[in-house]
């Protein structure tokens, strides 16, 4: 049988989704179900003097209006900084626009919205802290006065880079803003909670049903057996659906109070202020280098805007620190970070979570060194690459890069783009004022995938960094795989079936994958950190091989042979040397459940595997973006986008390509279009999709993508994961290209998003002899 791993198989998931049979949370209707809606803070920072709910509660078909005082059993949202907990409903103080202050329960969403509009909150405004500058200023208004500072957490630099920077022949600085973005999955967040006498059942648009159950158990003091969490079809997550939201416990507590199932689904306007934002970093970078473009020292200080509460954002700059040196050998690297509170939406993971921010900074550094030395950006990269024989490589913070060959992806990329031809065209266009300027930008990135191991994940508040799979061979010879990962668009039902098909020598259509239900799936961790294939896929392979082992023993008994003499090929078991006298999977599976024919063997074939990875993986790649820049308007057009990814073994080229394209699209979106912004008063200015510019097909280029494969030793598949690679690769490829287009004018820095106005101003400033 030809290998399924590596085959471009179309997805098992698609027919349901294509025909409107998706099971997204908002599609769920339970008997007696009520709708809940939050009254959200209209103020960025204020004391709550009082909340008047009478007019809302008096409306027909309203079942209740509750404030924090009415729900003393409501637990706060967990935090990594004890003492700075976020209440699930604001009690005395609000710290961002959109923070829930009261909750309404009504018979339908229209009545709930009517009731929300009739709740009046008496605010005593406090000074807003809309940005890092305000938060860190002397005498700044404090979000938590009792904490004494808006700095929620800090890791001072370990060591001093000054000596190495001073010793370098040349040095340069960059101040980079990795702007705040909204993950904006097409399906906003939602839950349905149904707390009956026996069980609390929660359907959630989340990235891990098991994580949600664990948190609910802890927060509500209910044993695991009393809680069932189901992640049905989930309409995208991008990291933000791994965050914890007040709806989980508020809906549960209200369901218990009212004895009815409760549905809570965000509108998009709510989503853009309530779902965690991503990125939101300012990086102060200093680099020491020599005239040949060799980098000798790097100092990075990351300031992370955490938003109003210290949640997932505290971990993000640590990941940025770890990956700061990118794919380069730099003798001295010193990094530090702090997470700072502002009166804005809390920040959390967004596709890449701290690593795109690192890739952006080091790849901007490389191009700055190229501009300063006049050495071609490709050559600067080559001169500083970690060589292919440097692995495993231990970074300045002790993190280990598993494997890599950065030159290989770059070589393939250069073959694809005709670099010299592009440079010639660029020069010609510079001389021709009737044509747009042209720029060529590169990004040779490395990131983390296959996230574990457990030592790292426990530090981030997770149960572990392992993953699980259970293989059940049914009496008809089909196989049901239960997996602990929780896909939300990635196509696990297809990719995991491919891995199992090879391990079991079964056709793809005999294998079903189930996930996202704590009642039918053994404990699992979930889907984030490009971990599902690298960690979950290995668990699938191991569980499948164990099932095969048991099936082989059953077959051996039936064939009256020793198990070690039995082989499995093309779905048939036979004694080595006599392939014609074999028995099929169907017969073996069926007999496995008939003890009368099994001798001393235990009936059934059902085995689990829990895989703990020894290493995180490091997917990498080389991308190139070619842009045109309109001289009159500053408008940037992507003329080509070419990428070579190295995620080790590719399980399914079709879906792998989809992951890269989607990630690159989000990276381009960050580079050119998207930014969450706030006014001086702390009011969000981007709370609808009319203001927050998620690009359409008209803004996206055609992608030219390939893979090279440097397997990881972290798992037997050799697969590294690549869900976050595109988003990690793209922003700096685009920004480097635009700066390259303008570099002859003296432009050295531009901050994302590169709106026509920003680019136009840079061109004007350069033309007027100023510095952009």
């Amino acid at each position, binding site marked *: 049988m030809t290998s399924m791993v590596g085959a471009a198989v179309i997805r098992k998931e698609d027919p349901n989704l*294509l025909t409107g049979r998706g099971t997204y949370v908002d599609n769920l209707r339970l008997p007696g179900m009520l709708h809940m809606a939050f009254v959200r803070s209209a103020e960025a920072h204020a004391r709550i003097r009082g909340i008047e709910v009478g007019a809302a509660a008096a409306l027909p078909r309203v079942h209740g209006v509750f404030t924090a005082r009415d729900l003393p059993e409501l637990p706060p949202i967990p935090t990594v900084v004890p003492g700075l907990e976020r209440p699930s409903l604001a009690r005395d103080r609000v710290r961002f626009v959109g923070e829930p202050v009261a909750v309404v329960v009504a018979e339908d969403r*229209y009545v709930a919205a009517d009731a929300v509009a009739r709740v009046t909150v008496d605010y005593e405004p406090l000074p807003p802290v809309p940005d890092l500058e305000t938060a860190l200023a002397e005498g700044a208004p404090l979000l938590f006065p009792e904490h004494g500072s808006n700095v929620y957490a800090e890791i001072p630099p370990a060591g001093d880079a000054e000596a190495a920077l001073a010793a370098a022949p040349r040095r340069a600085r960059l101040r980079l803003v990795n702007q705040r973005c909204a993950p904006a999955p097409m399906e906003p967040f939602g839950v349905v909670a149904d707390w009956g006498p026996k069980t609390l059942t929660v359907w959630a648009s989340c990235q891990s049903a098991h994580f949600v159950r664990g948190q609910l158990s802890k927060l509500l003091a209910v044993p695991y057996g009393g809680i069932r969490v189901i992640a049905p*079809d*989930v309409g995208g997550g991008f990291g933000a659906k791994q965050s914890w939201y007040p709806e989980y416990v508020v809906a549960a507590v209200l369901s218990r109070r009212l004895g009815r199932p409760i549905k809570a689904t965000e509108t998009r*306007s709510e989503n853009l202020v309530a779902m965690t934002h991503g990125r939101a970093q300012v990086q102060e970078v200093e680099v020491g280098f020599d005239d040949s473009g060799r980098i000798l020292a790097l100092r990075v200080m990351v300031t992370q805007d955490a938003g109003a509460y210290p949640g997932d954002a505290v971990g993000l700059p640590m990941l940025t620190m770890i990956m700061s040196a990118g794919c380069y050998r730099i003798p001295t690297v010193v990094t530090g970070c702090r997470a700072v509170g502002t009166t804005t939406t809390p920040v959390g993971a967004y596709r890449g979570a701290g690593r795109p921010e690192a890739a952006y900074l080091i790849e901007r550094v490389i191009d700055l060194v190229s501009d300063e030395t006049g050495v071609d950006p490709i050559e600067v990269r080559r001169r500083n690459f970690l060589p292919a024989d440097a692995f495993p490589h231990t970074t300045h913070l002790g993190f280990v890069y598993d494997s890599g060959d950065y030159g290989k992806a770059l070589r393939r990329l250069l073959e694809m783009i005709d670099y010299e031809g592009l440079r010639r065209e660029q020069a010609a266009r510079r001389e021709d004022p009737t044509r747009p300027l042209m720029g060529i930008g590169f990004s040779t990135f490395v990131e983390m995938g296959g996230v574990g191991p457990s030592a790292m994940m426990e530090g981030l508040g997770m149960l572990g960094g392992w993953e699980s799979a259970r293989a059940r061979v049914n009496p008809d010879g089909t196989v049901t795989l239960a997996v602990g990962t929780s896909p939300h668009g990635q196509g696990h039902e297809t990719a995991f079936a491919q891995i199992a098909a090879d391990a079991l020598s079964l056709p793809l259509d005999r294998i079903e994958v189930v996930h996202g239900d704590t009642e039918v799936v053994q404990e699992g961790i979930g889907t984030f950190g490009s971990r599902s294939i690298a960690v979950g896929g290995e668990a699938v392979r191991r569980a499948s091989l164990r099932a095969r082992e048991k099936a082989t023993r059953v077959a051996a008994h039936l064939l009256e042979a020793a198990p070690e003499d039995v082989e499995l090929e093309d779905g048939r078991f036979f004694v080595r040397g006599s392939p014609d006298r074999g028995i099929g999977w169907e017969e073996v599976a069926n007999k496995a459940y008939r003890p009368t024919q099994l001798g001393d063997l235990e009936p059934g074939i059902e085995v689990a595997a829990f895989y703990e990875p020894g290493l995180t993986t490091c997917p990498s790649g080389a991308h190139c973006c070619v842009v045109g820049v309109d001289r009159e308007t500053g408008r940037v057009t992507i003329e080509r986008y070419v990428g070579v990814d190295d995620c080790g073994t590719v399980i399914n080229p079709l879906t792998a390509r989809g992951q890269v394209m989607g990630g690159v699209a989000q990276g381009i979106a960050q580079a050119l279009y998207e930014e969450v912004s706030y006014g001086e008063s702390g009011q969000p200015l981007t709370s609808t999709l009319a203001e927050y510019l998620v690009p*359409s097909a008209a803004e*996206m280029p055609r992608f030219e993508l390939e893979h090279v494969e440097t397997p990881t030793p972290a798992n037997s598949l050799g697969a590294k994961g690549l869900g976050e690679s595109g988003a990690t690769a793209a922003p700096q490829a685009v920004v480097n290209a635009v700066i390259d287009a303008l570099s002859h004018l003296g432009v050295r820095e531009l901050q994302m998003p590169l709106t026509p106005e920003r680019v136009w101003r840079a061109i004007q400033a350069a033309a007027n002899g100023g510095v952009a």
Partner: protein
Amino acid sequence: MRIELTVNGRHEAAEVEPRLLLVHLLRERLGLTGTNVGCDSTSCGACTVLLDGQSVKSCTVLAVQADGAEVTTIEGLSGAGGGLHPLQAAFQRHHALQCGYCTPGMVMAAVSLLAEHPHPTEEEVRRGLEGNLCRCTGYQGIVDAILEVARTTGGAER
């Protein structure tokens, strides 16, 4: 108010509040949950359906405006046997969907696009989809699926 309309070939009658949106009539009264809601500013197109053959965003149409009209949703697209419409099949072949949330609206927008422009260029397909957002795919699979159907069926298939 009482309204009558045809949805996916079936006659339906409903007593509705004047403010009820068409998408909520479809999803919550008629149980047709294939049409998703992705925003509240007519920006994302997840709720796209055909109203008298034209694609509309059903979150911006009142149910009462559909009185007397013919509505086609994703549930009404495939044949009675449940087979995939050529566009649906092409979407699967070209991996034009990941999470699937934008997909019903995207497919309906594509049906309308090909009805109006049976032989679109790539540029026309991209422009024609401007009102439909997808956060997963980067759009290339969607564009390719539509172009393939346009090539193989002349775009006449409805």
